C-alpha cells in the first residue's frame, strides 16, 4: 500500500494546530529547562499605596502586598513580614504584621494585603521575606 494517510481538511487542520501547539510547548519547556533550571527562587516584596476601606474608621488601614519571584523555582509557604517603624517610638516598631503565600511560581507574582491600625507614612514600612519552602 503506497497511499498516504486518509484525511480530510478538518483533520489536517486539527493535526497542524496540534503539531504547532506541541512544538511551541516543547520549545518553551526546553528553553525554560536550559535557562532557569539551576536558579533558586528569588523573591522580592513590594508594598502598594495604603488606603482606608471605611472612611468612618480611620484606624483600619489596608496595605497591599505584592511578592514577585524572578528565580527559576517555585517557592511555597512564602512568609512575609511588614512592620511599621517610627523613629520616635521607644522600641522603633509600632506594628508588625505577617502574611503567608501558599505558592509563588517562578517568573510570577502573587498579591495580598495587610491591615494596620496606624496610617503609615511612605518611609515607615519595612517589608521582608522571612522564609519559604522548596516544594
Amino acid at each position: 500500500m503506497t497511499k498516504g494517510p486518509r484525511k480530510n481538511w478538518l483533520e489536517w487542520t486539527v493535526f497542524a494546530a496540534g503539531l504547532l501547539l506541541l512544538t511551541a510547548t516543547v520549545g518553551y519547556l526546553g528553553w525554560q529547562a536550559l535557562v532557569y533550571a539551576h536558579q533558586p527562587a528569588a523573591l522580592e516584596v513590594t508594598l502598594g499605596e495604603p488606603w482606608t476601606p471605611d472612611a468612618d474608621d480611620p484606624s483600619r488601614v489596608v496595605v497591599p502586598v505584592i511578592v514577585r519571584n524572578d528565580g527559576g523555582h517555585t517557592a511555597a509557604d512564602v512568609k512575609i513580614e511588614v512592620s511599621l517603624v517610627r523613629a520616635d517610638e521607644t522600641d522603633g516598631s509600632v506594628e508588625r504584621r505577617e502574611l503567608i503565600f501558599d505558592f509563588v511560581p517562578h517568573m510570577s507574582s502573587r498579591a495580598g494585603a495587610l491591615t494596620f491600625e496606624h496610617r503609615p507614612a511612605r518611609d515607615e514600612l519595612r517589608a521582608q521575606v522571612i522564609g519559604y519552602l522548596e516544594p
Partner: protein
Amino acid sequence: MSEHVLPRPSLAGSVREYARGVAGGLLFSLPLLYTMEMWEMGLVAEPTRLLVGLGVGFLLLLGYNRYAGLRCDASFTEVVIDSIEELGLGLVLAAAILWLLGSIDGDTRMPEIVGKVVIEGLVVAIGVSVGTAQLGGESPGVVGDGNDNDDDKNKYVERRPMSLSETLHGPSWFAAQLTLATCGAVLIAANVAPTEEIQDIARGISEVQQIGLTVLTLAIGALVLYSSDFRGSRDHVLFDGRADVALGILTTYLVSMFAAAALLWFFGRFDDNGLAFCLAETIVLGLPTAIGASAGRLLLQQK
C-alpha cells in the same frame, strides 16, 4: 466493498470522532481537572520533568493507537498523526477547562499556564484517545471503522481459524498486551497518583500491611485475568497451563509496579525520599495500577 483506495472520511464522521474524543477526554480526566494537587504540580514541576512527561505520554498514545486505536490497522505515520492530534486536543481542552475553573486566568504567567496545561493535558489526551476508539457506536457507514480494505479483510478472515494459542504466543501479541496493560494502569491509577493520600498511607502502614497489599495486588491480577470470565479475557489472556498463568500474573504485577513508580516519580512523590518510603508508596499505588493493568487492559482491547 472492494475498492482499493478508501474515500477520505466525511467531515461529519470526523466531527463525530472529535466529539467522542472530547467526551472521552472529559470522562476519564475530569477528576484530575478538579484536583488541587494537579494544579500545584503545574506550579512546582521543573521543565525537564514536564518534557519527560510529554515524551512518555506521547509514547503511551502511540502504543494505544497502534494496538487498540480507532485506526490501528493504519500505517505508522497515521498513528503518529492521530497521536499528535489527540495530544493537541488534550492540551486545548485542559486549558479551556482550567480557565473555566479559574485555575488559570489572564493574569497567570506563562510558566504556570504551561505547567498546569501540560500536566492536565497529558491525562486529557489519553482520555481523548480512549474515548475516540472505545466510545463509538457500531453504526455502519461511519467512517473510521474502515476495515473494509481488501488486504485487511483477508487478514481478518485468516486470523480467525488459527488456534488461539498460535496467534496468542507471538511477540507482537505480547508487546500489544504490555502496552495496553501500561495504558490501563496509567489511566486508572492517574486519578489517585497525585493525591496527598498516597504519601499519607505510605507513611502510616506497617510492613505486614505492605505485604498484604502486595498479595492483594497479585490476587487482583489473577482474579481478573484467570477466574472471573472478565470481558475479553478468553480472547486476550493465555490459558494454556500453569506456566502461562504464572507468567501472566507476574507480568501484570511488574507492569503495575513499574507504572506506579513512574507515575509517582512524575508527580514528584519520590523527590528527596528514602528508598524504603518510595517502595511503600509504590506498593500503595500498585493496587490501583494492578486493577488498571488487568481489568483496564481487557476493557481497552480493540473493539
